[in-house]
């Protein structure tokens, strides 16, 4: 029996892959059951309905420690995890992004390392992920989505400034009917959960299929509290709480942790024992460290005519021209510009977050809402040891577990990259006549990575190239916390590709009686 903690991109994919191989699993999902009928076209309603709102603290030098003090991350608690909320951008890492230490060299103040896998090794797994998820592009032959107003403005600015790498894909949103799911109706509200299932999520694909196979049981409202182990050090099961607060022990031959990059290290740390006083799988001391969430900013331009950016897919196009390592720009790594619509409520909340977002200039900006097009710029966030997840010394959550504190302080690399993002985006929009440009500080992170990093060397990382912990053979990490570096791109496709690959590895090791 494999016990998988979390039902998102990593856990949900792993459960279905194992199920299709006839390997039994139980998925422990902390949140409630969700389906497409729960998805409403309303930003705050869905925020309240699906977000992970258990007590957490935001710390460190980023603005959110002040402006979002209890919301370090914007992720989902529920059946399907954060694949309910993701926008569908399905990009692959570039080769150099797997080899950041080799490419960048040592970076002062950062903890940059190479992945123990390469793009060449990952390419067949990326292809399997793209086929599974129905990603538009050459692997599937599905055309990219039609261009909406907001992206057409951005694309024209890209054309006029000599850029060449801009398109409405690759997206894991059906441009045509595919895999028993309908084609996109340009509804918008992708990040509030696709109401028709045109967007891939484990909620609509992997989880129901795993359950239908007869090899997987998914328990919702099941919060993992502690991973148990025996005298030999192997993990033996997971203690969890049900919705009434009753505790249960689920025995396991293998445990796979996929609770996103805050809960996964938190669970390993909370599972400390006499044998593992620093937490499970933590002989390297890297559990909970190297938290990365992408260097990011929102940039919104006011155009001379109405745009109505909210019409159509939320992330309607991707600009990749700046995803390259050019140290002469003054920073390491690259970044994407992704057209992203916000509804009026979220624009009002994120245009100027915190106590100062009001007044005459704020209100005038809001009156320009229907003339706006904008991007979410996201780029490589260098790992730093001091950025990470620690446990509160005294405060406990509703399950009696120490509340996690998520610390994030930007590196100088982030400041230099952010300035470049703003300059590039301003140029693009000014070449189509933008009259005003607003820079929004980072949102609470939906891309959370690195807190159980992969490394070939057991002293420098928590897991090996298959997500298997260096310390305990039958304990795996199956989510984005495995990432050695963040890359510039959205993490989901890589999480799914790694989960498919991990399932193959687990099946092989089980057959060989190695675990």
């Amino acid at each position, binding site marked *: 029996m494999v016990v998988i903690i979390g039902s998102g991109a990593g856990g949900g994919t792993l459960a279905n892959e194992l199920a299709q191989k006839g390997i039994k699993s139980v998925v422990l999902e902390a949140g409630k059951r969700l389906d497409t009928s729960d998805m409403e*076209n309303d930003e705050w309603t869905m925020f309240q309905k699906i977000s992970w709102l258990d007590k957490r603290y935001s710390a460190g030098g980023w603005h959110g420690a002040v402006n979002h003090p209890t919301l370090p991350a914007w992720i989902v608690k529920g059946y399907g995890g954060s694949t309910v909320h993701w926008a569908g951008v399905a990009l692959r890492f570039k080769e150099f992004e797997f080899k950041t230490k080799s490419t960048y060299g040592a970076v002062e103040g950062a903890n940059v390392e190479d992945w123990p896998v390469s793009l060449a090794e990952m390419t067949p797994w990326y292809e399997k992920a793209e086929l599974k998820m129905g990603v538009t592009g*050459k692997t*599937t*032959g*599905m*055309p*990219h989505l*039609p*261009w*909406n*107003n907001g*992206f*057409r*403005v951005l*694309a*024209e600015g890209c054309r006029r400034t000599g850029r060449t790498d801009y398109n*409405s894909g690759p997206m894991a949103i059906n441009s045509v009917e595919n895999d028993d799911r309908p084609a*996109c*109706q*340009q*509804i*918008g*509200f992708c990040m509030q959960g696709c*109401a*028709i299932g045109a967007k891939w999520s484990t909620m609509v694909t992997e989880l129901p299929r795993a359950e239908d196979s007869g090899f997987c049981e998914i328990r919702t409202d099941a919060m993992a509290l502690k991973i148990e182990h025996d005298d030999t050090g192997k993990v033996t099961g997971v203690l969890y709480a049900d919705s009434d607060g009753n505790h249960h022990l689920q025995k396991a031959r293998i445990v796979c942790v996929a609770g996103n990059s805050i809960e996964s290290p938190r669970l390993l740390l909370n599972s400390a024992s006499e044998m593992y006083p620093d937490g499970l799988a933590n002989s390297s001391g890297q559990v909970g460290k190297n938290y990365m969430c992408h260097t990011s900013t929102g940039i919104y331009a006011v*155009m001379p*005519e*109405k745009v*109505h950016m*909210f*019409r*159509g897919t939320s992330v309607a196009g991707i600009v990749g021209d700046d995803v390259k390592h050019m140290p002469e720009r003054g920073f390491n790594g690259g970044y994407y510009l992704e057209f992203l619509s916000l*509804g*009026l*409520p979220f*624009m*009002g909340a994120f245009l100027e977050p915190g*106590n*100062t977002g*009001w*007044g*005459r*200039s*704020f*209100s*005038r*900006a*809001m*009156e320009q*809402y*229907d003339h706006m097009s904008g991007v979410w710029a996201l780029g490589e966030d260098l790992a730093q040891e001091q950025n990470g997840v620690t446990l509160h010394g005294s405060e406990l959550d509703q399950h009696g577990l120490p509340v996690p504190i998520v610390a994030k302080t930007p590196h100088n690399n982030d400041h230099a990259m952010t*300035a470049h993002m703003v*300059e590039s985006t*301003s*140029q693009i929009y000014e070449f*189509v006549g933008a009259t*005003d*440009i*607003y*820079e929004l500080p980072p949102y609470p992170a939906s891309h959370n990575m690195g807190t159980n990093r992969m490394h070939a060397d057991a002293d420098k990382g928590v897991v090996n190239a298959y997500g298997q912990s260096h310390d305990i053979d039958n304990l795996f990490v199956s989510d984005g916390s495995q990432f050695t570096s963040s890359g510039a791109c959205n993490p989901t496709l890589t999480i799914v590709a790694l989960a498919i690959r991990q399932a193959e590895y687990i099946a092989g090791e089980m057959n060989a009686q190695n675990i």
Partner: protein
Amino acid sequence: MTIRFHRLKPSGPDHAGISRRMFLMTTAMAGVTTSAMIASTGRAFAATLDQGESATLLRMVQDIYPHPDLLAVSHYQSIADAVIANAENDAAAAKDLREGLARIDAQSQHLFGSDYIAIPDPDAREGVLRKFQHDGFFQGVRWTAYFAIYNNVDVWPLFGYQGNSVEYGGYIDRGFSDITFVPDGPSLAERMAEVQG
């Protein structure tokens, strides 16, 4: 190239008078604010705020999110009423609110020698409020106003936001790609060609 960094546009003049859109607004808001509008004339706030304090609160709400060309005063009054109603159920909040409004007037007297509502320059009034923007009473008023304006389906059309779309079949046939000041995107045939072969 230097960055043109127009983070916040300098304040221009507010639009005065009642515009056509404001009349539309009054109609659109009827279902939501009728009771508040009717109540606002004869309502006794003595339990929580006196008449002067109520006037200061109304001006404050208008200065926090000023949309004089879009929103009728009655809408701001309904927000002020909601703030007062909340305070009526919470003695500590009511005390905070009254003391906060008094501090706004004291600061106005200190800087301009007049009560807050008598300061004619809107930027000067905003400056007075900025001093108190981190206070609990201020943020309570501010977030009440935020939700009543930017998260209000009846107000959204005035900002050009259309909200819920799935029940109308999305925007695929309702203008998701209807602007004319930039070129069209690629056709389906072009999008098919780029991913095949």
